[in-house]
Structure formats: C-alpha cells, structure tokens
C-alpha cells in the first residue's frame, strides 16, 4: 500500500511537471469513425491508412488515435461518437465517409464541444446554414466534383449529355451540381435505384436518346457495374463522372472498360508538388498499393491537425485551435491549401483521364475543371 501511494505521488509530481512544461507536451486524442467493413469499406480503409501514414511520418508521439468501424450504418456511427465523446473524452472526431452518417453524428458532436474534421463527406447542410466554427472539411463540398464536370462538359462543346445518378440525396445533389455549371439542354435524366447492379434498361434508354456524352454519378459497386455493362453495349459515347467511380481502389475491378473515361478530382497521384511525391512514394512503400483520393484526404486531414496541434499545443484554448486550423499551415498533397469562410477548401478541381501505366490502370491529369472553387452554399453560412 505504501509502495502504491508512493508511485501515485511520483506520478502526480510528474504530471504537474509536465503541466508546467511547454504547451506541445499536452496530448491530443482523436476519435476516428469510419467504414471498415461491408461494401463501402475500401473508402474507409484508405482514409484510415492515409491518416495513419501522416502521423507515422510526423514522428509525433503525443497523439492518440482511436479507430472504430461504423459498418456504414448511421446508428452505429452515432453510438461510437457518443462513446468517444463521453467515455474516451476525445478532442477531435474525424473519419466519416458517408453524408448520411455525417448528418447523424456531426451536429450533435459539435454541440458537445468537440472539433469535427471531415476527411470525406461534405453535405450541403453543413456547408451552408449548418456551418459551425468547429467544423472543418478537408476534402470538398459534395457538389464540387460534379460542378467541375458540368463546367468541363460545357466548355468542351458537348450539347446533349445524358445524366444519371441514384435516387437518394447525394444523387440529386450530383445532378443539380452538374447542371449548375452545365447550362445547356440534356438528352435525358434518370434516377436509378440505390444499390442497383443491372443497368441494361438505362443503357437502352441512353441509346434511344442518342446523346453526345454521358455524365454519371454511381459510387462504388454501382459504377463498376455500369461501366462494364456500358462497354459491352456497343455504344461509343464518351463517359464523364466524378472521381468516385474511378478511384484507385475500384479501377482494378472495372478493368479496361474504364480506359479513356474523364473524371474530376481535387487530387491525382501525378500532381506535381513535393508533398504529393513524398506521399505517393511513402504510401506505396507502407501499404504496397497505389493511394486513392480517399487516402490523400486522410493524409491531408492528419497533417492539418498536426499543424494546428504544433502551433497551439492542444484544444484547451478552442479559439486558438480553431484559428490554427483556419490558417491551414501545412504542406497539402494538393499544393496550396486554404479554407473559405465556411471552413471548406478553396481549390482547383482537375479533370483526369483513366490510362494504363504498364499493367496498372490509373489516372492522369488532362485539364482543370474549375479554378480556385469554393461552393454554392457559402452565402448561407453565418458564423
């Protein structure tokens, strides 16, 4: 007993000493809620791996990251968030992939006083009216990539695009976003069922409408199915879409059918800057695969947090930490990086083309869709 209390006293003394030391000695606890099982797990795994890689490369030891799998279910994500906040007392939450999960978790977490830094989901509700001083999105507002593709299709003289997306909120946002920057007529517009895997009926409608281009937003397995079936249909109209159906994790499953497809992304592995080169090389070395845009978002998220932490030493002073995040003083793999007034990135959105490098399908930049783009809801954000 005496030994025990002696140890306790020592520990107390040590912690007092630590408390008086430099600010940076304070620890930081991050809760990561992401999708690690089920059909959408590839995205969460990439975000996590990118995030962890950045922490590892930084050499910092004061940051503790708790990772849990939300299985792409809003109720599970909410439970994990409550546990992270109440029991583990995390300072920052991050990691959510899907917008419906983000809406279940983020507003309540912000009310509980933690920071939320999104590596992926960017629903309009959190970018406009629901924006918050402690909410930051490192990836994009959901509409961004679609808007850029709309602009690109318009600028390249296409007059009759056929557009399709799944019948759920992000699908409607996608087509709305596309039409915000493509202002001409469309040959047709279809909402498919979420999770649909057979697109024969839709492809026949495309054929009937005789368009000069096709824009589609079908993330994950839906996109794989669509592109493969389209390749067999004998139709030869060019395909356009956001990067989600053509990221590194999916291309292997689509195969050569994806060659030549144009897609919009805020990141690409051939972006020419030192941070990106280091990231691509380190990621391949660590995980023996090419990074996807999700991995790049996880990596940037971790580096943003690291930068703010080094400046302020922790979230004890919330205003100071928020200010440090707003400054975004880190080397992004996208080159320069800055936030707009609603804490979403102002960035270039590139147009990439699917190409083959040796045996591996990957993307290369062929143009810029939108330059220094923010988002459409910023006027509604009053912080």
């Amino acid at each position, binding site marked *: 007993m005496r030994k025990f209390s002696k140890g306790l006293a020592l520990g107390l003394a040590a912690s007092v000493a630590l408390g008086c030391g430099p600010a940076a000695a304070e620890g930081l606890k991050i809760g990561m809620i992401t999708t690690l099982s089920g059909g959408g797990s590839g995205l969460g795994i990439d975000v996590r791996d990118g995030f962890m890689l950045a922490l590892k490369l930084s050499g910092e030891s004061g940051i503790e990251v708790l990772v849990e799998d939300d299985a792409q279910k809003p109720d599970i994500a909410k439970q994990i968030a409550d546990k992270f906040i109440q029991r583990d007392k995390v300072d920052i939450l991050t990691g959510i992939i899907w917008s419906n999960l983000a809406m279940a978790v983020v507003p309540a977490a912000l009310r509980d006083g933690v920071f939320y830094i999104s590596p992926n989901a960017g629903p309009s509700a959190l970018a406009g009216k629901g924006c918050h001083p402690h909410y930051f999105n490192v990836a994009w507002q959901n509409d961004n990539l679609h808007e850029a593709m709309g602009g690109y299709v318009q600028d390249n003289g296409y007059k009759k695009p056929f557009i399709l997306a799944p*019948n759920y909120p992000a699908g409607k946002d996608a087509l709305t976003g596309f039409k915000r920057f493509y202002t001409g007529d469309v040959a047709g517009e279809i909402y498919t069922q979420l999770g649909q*895997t057979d697109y024969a009926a839709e492809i026949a409608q495309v054929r009937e409408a005789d368009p000069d281009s096709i824009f589609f937003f079908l993330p994950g397995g839906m996109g794989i199915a669509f592109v493969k079936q389209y390749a067999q249909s004998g139709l030869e109209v060019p395909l356009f879409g956001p990067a989600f159906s053509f990221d590194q994790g999916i291309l292997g499953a689509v195969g050569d059918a994806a060659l030549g497809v144009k897609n919009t992304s805020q990141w690409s592995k051939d972006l020419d800057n030192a941070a990106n080169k280091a990231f691509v090389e380190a990621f391949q070395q660590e995980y023996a695969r090419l990074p996807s845009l999700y991995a790049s978002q996880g990596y940037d998220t971790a580096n943003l947090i690291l930068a703010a932490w080094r400046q302020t030493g922790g979230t004890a002073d919330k205003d100071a930490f928020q200010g440090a995040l707003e400054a975004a003083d880190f080397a992004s793999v996208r080159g320069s990086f800055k936030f707009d007034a609603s804490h979403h990135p102002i960035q270039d959105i590139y147009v990439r083309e699917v190409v083959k490098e040796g045996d591996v399908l990957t993307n290369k930049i062929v143009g810029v869709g939108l330059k220094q783009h923010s988002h459409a809801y910023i006027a509604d954000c009053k912080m």
Partner: protein
Amino acid sequence: MSLAFLIEQLLNGVQLGVMLFLMAAGLTLVFGVMGLINLAHGSLYMVGAFFCAWIAGQTGSFWLGLGGGFLAAAATGALVEIVVIRRLYDRDHLDQVLATFALILIFSELARWVFGDRPLYLDVPAVLSGAVPLPGGGGYPAYRLAIIAVGLTTAVGLYLLIAKTRLGMQIRAGESDREMIGALGVDIRRLYTAVFALGAALAGLAGGMVGALQSVQVGMGEPVLILAFVVIIIGGIGSVKGALVGAVLVGVTDTLGRVFLPQLFGLLLPPSEATSVGSSLAAMAIYLLMAAVLTWRPKGLFPVDG
C-alpha cells in the same frame, strides 16, 4: 419510341428473369422438398461469383472460372447442409431464419478475409464481348443473350431432371410426403444433401455469370435474394415451373417499370419531379405485382399442394 428499343427492353427483362430463375429454382426446391427457408442462398451466389473471378484471374479463362464457381458453390452447399442445415429441418421457421442469417454474416466475413475488401475483377470472355445487331437498329450485348440461353437450357435440364430421372422422382415424392419416401427406403439424408447442393450450384452459376456484368464484392447476394423470394412467392412456393414463370414476370415488370413509369409521370409532372417520383414507384413495381398476384391466387401462380 422505336421497335428496337422495345425489343431491347424486353430482352433485358427476360435476361434479368432467367438470372432470377437460377436463384429462385434452388430456393424453391429447398423449400419444397425440405421445408427450409434458406436466407444464406445469396451467400452461395456470392461464393460462385468469387470463385469464378478468382479462378478466372489465376488461369485467364472465364470458362474454367465459371465451372469452378459452379462446383465451388455446389461443394459449399453440400458442406453447409451437412454441418449446419441438417440440424434445422425439425426446427420451426424462426430458428431456420436465424441460423441461415448467421450464415450470411459468416460467409461475408469469410469472403472478406480470404479475398480482401476490394471488389474483384471479372470480365466477359472475349468471344461474347461486343454487341449483336438487333432488327430495327441498335445492338444487344452478346453476353446477355448467352445468359438467356444458359438460363433457358438450365430450365429445360431441370425439367428433364425432375420429370424423367430417378432423382427427380424422389424429389417430387419428397415434396408431397416426406415421411413416406423415408419409409420406402430412400436415403433421405443423401437426397437432401443432393437437392441442397443442386440449388447451391445453380446459385453459384448465376453468381459467376452475373459477376462478369457487375462488381464481384461482399454483400452482392442479398439484393438478389430478396428478388428471388418475391419470385418464388409469386410462382408458388416449391414449384420450379412457378419459379420460371415468376422470374420472367418479375424481370420484365421490373425492367419495363424502370423505363416507362418515369416517362408516364413525365406527361403529368415537370421532368425532374417525374423522374424522381417515377423511379421511386418503379422500385415498388414488383412488390405491387406480388400483392396483385397474391390477392388473385393466395398460394401463388402454381401452388404445389393444389
């Protein structure tokens, strides 16, 4: 609207239908003969697709993959029947549903373990890539025509098996009186294993063929399973003929609903609302069909027990 468009959509409906038939045939046989509700049927479909993709990736031959997927699903089916399903025949349906639901979770995690998280690549064989011209212009993917051919051949084969062979006779006897055929000296345990493996093999065949059109990934079986249940309820539980008719009916209704309902609403509503309302209603079309059939014939189109 051109004639070619209509023909193409009808073919799409039939192709979806025969694919559903391959799934529903096994489901309905297992229910008819053993009285078992098998929720894990979709997992056998997934097993077929994964093995097909994996073997095709290793050997470069789609056909070897398809054969391998067929056999792997049959073997998995036989194994599952012997280890798990056998213990469930005397239990009530709730126990069966719970146990086979557990099998879904086990199979999904196993597949993730063995094959990884990323969807696998499986492409159509070179012979069948490309499109066949249709009368009136346009084309139709050769591979989908092949699926229709395989599905119809299987239907004929299954009919011959059930109507003309000794095994078929035992299956029919098992459907009408389980105790009696046991009493007559038929090894009922082997018969059950054979029927379950046959159903699993058909599901694996469907999985392998569809895998080349879609993405081969964990959880791919469950959406199809739901449709297959709708099919056997419409067709009459236990009836293979009912499964065929029900499957084609569901396939055509689903396809035409997806195409024409949004256009129909387009006459009444502004375009963006029409597509949205129409697509939502199209998602319900097959369930409306099921409800309509059941009010007319509560036991399905071809009830087994009259």
